[in-house]
């Protein structure tokens, strides 16, 4: 069925919505599903089946240390979790250790992207340097931060701050949350820089020049032209950054082991501890279910943002 003018994809899809009445059309649209099926089936099997198993285990009293006590316990595990103050604290820590790095790296990333959008000397080299914290293995970077940067006696940070009267501060133990936030922000700022730089460079320079010729100052141009244009890029950065930072594990495992106490224990680390240190499968499974339900509830709001990113034209800016 050819047409003389190439129809945009949206028109094509609307036409398809009405036309699926006769068997031939239905067959044609059924065929379209085939390329999707391998990826879909693979994802369902690998992600949804384990979740069903998690629910099954969450209803049982199942501890690898005490196999004699295994058996059905229905909602006992859930009751235990909701009375567990550590779990509540882990939830709170997860919110803090996700939101702060995301926002800080967004702001820093914006600043650096603005600086890089100009004709700076050695711009390509600068871009190469700035993406390095994102490419470096988080586990490796965490170790380097833990020892060479933050060590109380030999660490770089203490040495640099000595002229300011700082002596042998044990950053990791006295400021654990700040440490983790710093390391995570350091890792994810380059990510934001790249996304926002792409946004800045995709601005229409004609419009900016026209505004400048009309007498608009730099700040006004930024506020009324650049920021609205950057909005979808910032949203993309926030969504992707949150998805990954909610699961932050490497830095906490390597630097603080969740401590001191439970000050830097977030949900992934707490799940790891309960499952692999106390071997309480039932309780860990119940926690996993609760986390999944909470994430679904929260990400419904996030998905509405993602909805807007899924416009037919992608992000090519129409």
């Amino acid at each position, binding site marked *: 069925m050819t047409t003389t003018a190439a129809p*945009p994809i949206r028109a094509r899809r609307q036409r398809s919505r009405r036309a699926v009445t006769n068997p031939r059309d239905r067959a044609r649209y059924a065929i379209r599903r085939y390329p999707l099926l391998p990826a879909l089936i693979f*994802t369902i099997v690998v992600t949804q089946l384990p979740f069903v198993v998690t629910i099954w285990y969450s209803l049982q009293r199942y501890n690898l240390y005490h196999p004699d006590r295994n058996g059905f316990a229905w909602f006992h595990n859930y009751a235990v979790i909701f009375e567990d103050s550590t779990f509540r604290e882990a939830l709170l820590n997860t919110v803090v250790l996700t939101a702060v790095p995301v926002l800080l790296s967004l702001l820093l990333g914006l600043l650096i992207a603005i600086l890089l959008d100009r004709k700076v000397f050695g711009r390509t080299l600068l871009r190469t340097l700035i993406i390095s914290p994102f490419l470096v293995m988080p*586990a490796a970077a965490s170790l380097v931060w833990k020892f060479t940067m933050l060590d109380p006696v030999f660490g770089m940070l203490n040495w640099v701050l000595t002229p300011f009267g700082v002596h042998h501060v044990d950053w990791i133990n006295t400021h654990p949350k700040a440490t983790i936030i710093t390391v995570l922000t350091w890792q994810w700022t380059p990510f934001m820089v790249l996304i926002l730089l*792409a946004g800045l460079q995709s601005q229409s320079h004609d419009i900016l020049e026209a505004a400048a010729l009309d007498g608009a100052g730099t700040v006004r141009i930024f506020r009324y032209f650049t920021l609205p244009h950057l909005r979808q890029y910032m949203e993309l950065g926030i969504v992707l950054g949150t998805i990954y930072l909610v*699961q932050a594990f490497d830095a906490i495992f390597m630097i603080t082991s969740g401590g001191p106490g439970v000050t830097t224990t977030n949900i992934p680390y707490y*799940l790891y501890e309960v499952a692999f240190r106390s071997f309480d499968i039932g309780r860990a499974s119940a926690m996993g279910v609760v986390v999944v339900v909470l994430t679904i509830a929260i990400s419904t709001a996030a998905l509405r943002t993602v909805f807007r990113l899924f416009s037919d034209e992608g992000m090519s800016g129409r």
Partner: protein
Amino acid sequence: MTSIPAPAGTPVHLGERPAAARRKPRRFTPGRLLLGLLTWLIILLFFFPVAWMALTGFKQEKDAATTPPRVVFTPTLSQYSSAFDKGVSYLVNSVFTTVVSTLIVLLLALPAAYALSIAPVRNWRDSLFFFISTKMLPVAGAIIPLYIIAKNLHVLDHRVTLVVLYTSLNLPIAVWMLRSFLLEIPVDIFEAARVDGASLLRQLRSVVLPLISPGAAATALICFIFAWNEFFLAVNLTTTTAATVPVYLVSFQTGEGQFWAHLCAGATLACLPVLIAGWAAQDKLVRGLSMGAVK
């Protein structure tokens, strides 16, 4: 260049561009210089830990943990060579799991992205949401059943387990990225190919594949980065045989005695492949991360 009419009363310079467009800013005003220096300062600060990590790998242990930190020292290659010797099997495992999982991701994601963009299924939005929603659920929530299933299937400490799981971790992002790259291809190209009588397979091979290869390369790079650096699953589901490079780093976690130089050498080697790939393919990295928004 712009089409703004001159206000009434402005003398008209025939054949000349408006003065504002003609005047070029001087290159070295103090403001520009200061901003340039600021840019360099901030970025060097960010890069410093990476540079220090690589540098410390060349030190002997006695030069590694000192106060004040030593920049001048007698370099040695012994740390890097011993780290490499100890880490070779981990490197091999990492290369295997990363490359194989990335290949499988591309194999699965490309047709799926095609079915969600160019020849879309009826419920493409639902399918896309489903893929993305699997990324929003923390892996930590699934680690217990994964561990138990792997244990019962006797695939704990097997590379295949990691390959399968890394594929499932990267698939949603790959589908999302490839879809946005495919959407950039002008529809006319497909119409032209179809009018020319090419079958669907032929269309795909000679039209879609060449156009999508930069986007596919960008996606492969992103998958490579995330799979290589993945820590949580590797640490929990492998011990010796299938252990990847991140697991090798765990042995440094609670170090005693002098080990900083050795640690930094090992850490630098661990980061090297992804660093080189990312540096070499910077443009692809940007395209991938911004979902193809930058041409």
